[in-house]
């Protein structure tokens, strides 16, 4: 392989790992905003909760990483149902600004809460042997974890798409996202659909929070706010409520971000934002959004 090809492939592999993480983290918010028009800025708090549950499981109980991820999915999904029932549902018909205020309030309170429990330091876990170190793919060494991230991401994405395209509940969700009124008139209980979808989305975020520990330098209290920017960008570029769009947006932005930093480190975060601005000015409803 020529050195140029090696470089491109390397960039793609790394970018893909980040893309997968981005998608898993963002897709729930995309659905929430698309389905109910709810501006849930506390999405990052659920992802963060997932990260902390994973860390605690692994370090306190010695549970295997994969088990910890699944448990965090379940716990956070249940937690999000609680939040949805107690807080969110009062605000579905209220102005967006009220939703912003509530969810930012949750973000602040969650940051403070995890600081009390786990302290301000980033929490890390030592990965099992098969996930640490690097693996030689013939043309370059890659971190095992990145490869794992791509594989795990692909499985999760496939499962999600299968669930949405092939199952009854998936069809109901898609119908409700497309046209809520129509779906309701067809007898779909969109309120319940939303609760389940919200739980699913938050659970996915929790998975992302757990999977991201290794890639994002640990899980820490400010996570909930720090990654909000990225979620919003992915969703806007992908088109609100568009799952396929969110996937491609995550793919494009993940790879561009890596390539940008690799080739033009001076550009800093500039490149990903420049791309976002250009895309949104040309396609204000996102790459795959409804006009």
């Amino acid at each position, binding site marked *: 392989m020529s050195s140029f090809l090696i470089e491109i492939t390397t960039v793609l592999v790394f970018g893909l790992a980040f893309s997968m993480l981005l998608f898993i983290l963002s897709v729930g918010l995309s659905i929430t905003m698309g389905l109910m028009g709810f501006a849930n800025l506390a999405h990052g708090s659920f992802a963060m909760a997932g990260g902390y549950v994973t860390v605690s499981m692994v370090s306190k109980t010695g549970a295997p990483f994969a088990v910890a991820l699944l448990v965090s999915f379940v716990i956070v999904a249940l937690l999000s149902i609680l939040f949805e029932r107690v807080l969110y549902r009062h605000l579905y018909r209220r102005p967006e600004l009220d939703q912003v205020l509530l969810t930012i309030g949750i973000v602040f309170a969650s940051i403070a809460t995890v*600081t009390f429990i786990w302290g301000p330091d980033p929490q890390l876990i030592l990965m099992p042997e098969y996930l640490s170190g690097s693996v030689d793919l013939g043309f370059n060494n890659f971190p095992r974890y990145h490869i794992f991230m791509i594989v795990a991401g692909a499985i999760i994405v496939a499962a999600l798409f299968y669930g949405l395209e092939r199952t009854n509940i998936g069809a109901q969700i898609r119908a409700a996202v497309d046209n809520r009124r129509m779906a309701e008139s067809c007898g779909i209980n969109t309120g319940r659909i939303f609760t389940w979808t919200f739980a699913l989305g938050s659970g996915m975020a929790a998975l992302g929070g757990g999977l991201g520990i290794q890639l994002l330098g640990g899980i820490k209290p400010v996570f909930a706010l720090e990654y909000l920017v990225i979620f919003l960008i992915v969703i806007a570029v992908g088109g609100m409520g568009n799952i396929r769009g969110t996937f491609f947006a995550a793919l494009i932005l993940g790879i561009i971000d890596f390539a940008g930093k690799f080739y033009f480190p001076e550009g800093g975060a500039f490149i990903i934002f420049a791309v976002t601005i250009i895309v949104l000015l040309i396609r204000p409803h996102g790459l795959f959004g409804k006009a």
Partner: protein
Amino acid sequence: MTSSTGTPTGSLARSVQFLQRRHRFHWAEIIPWILAIAVFYLLPGYRLLATQILVMILFALSLDLIVGYAGIISLGHTAFFGTGAYITALMASNDIPDPILGLIAAAAGAAVLGLVSGWVLLRTTGLTLLVLTMAVTIMLQELANDFDEITGGFDGINFTNSEILGLIELDQLWYSSSYIYVLVVLFFGFLTIRTIVYAPFGRMLIGIRENTQRMSAIGTPVHQRQVSVYIISAAIAGIAGALWVQVQGNVTTEVYTFELSGEVLIMLILGGTGRLYGAFLGATVYKILESTTEQVLGTDEPYWQFAIGIVLILTVLFARRGLFGIFEDIVKKFKGASKGEVQ
């Protein structure tokens, strides 16, 4: 005062009379200014915090023009605040230390940025606009960080202002003259904004917020008007940014953070949008919680974030129109229904 305001079912003449008097000053509007002066004399040790609050009020007011009145939600208002701040700081550190000139240049520079970015960005709405405004701010912050030969980067620039009108030095320890300076600028800024919102232009903005489709159908060039108010708002935000750094004598890239954009938006929603005094209340409550929670609780543990979070949640759940809404409800209870009083 109150007996003259019209009742909902009153005759046409009384309705017109209500509209003709709507913009008049209510005696209660003097309260914030009295409080501001009282703070100056009674709490001298809190003057820098109080000064910062006054600046934030002006910043939040500028945001209220676009969010509360014109219905344009932005997560990037620090683009203007920061630009005003840097213009002033750069002038002062390059031998143009006059604070008033600094304010004027900051307003002009921010207005130009408002024109350019508004013209392009305001064709979009909702989440897209939110993300675009945020992206612009973050890019400006990156630029300020990268060009640290000029901006001082993360460490920023320290500078000194000359005397105001060649007479009054901006005091940076006891914040006596600085506080008064900011208060005076805030007062005129507030008067300007208040005049604008009660003029036909302000009413027109409310129309845009309520229904852009209908505004087009009555002959309003909506985009052009949105850009106009964006420019005005940008200029005032630029002045706020200039004040922010003038009274502190230094500027860092923090003035461009999107977190600050978020904070000022939260202050505004917390206080209540579209009513001017919401900005006063929201900025004050937020900054006081941020700065004094630990002192009040007598702890070194950082509780402020928790305190703000809880206040935000409770405000949304129980005070439907921000904290100022509580105030309005109380007034209403005392007076019976007097509609549109604080529109």
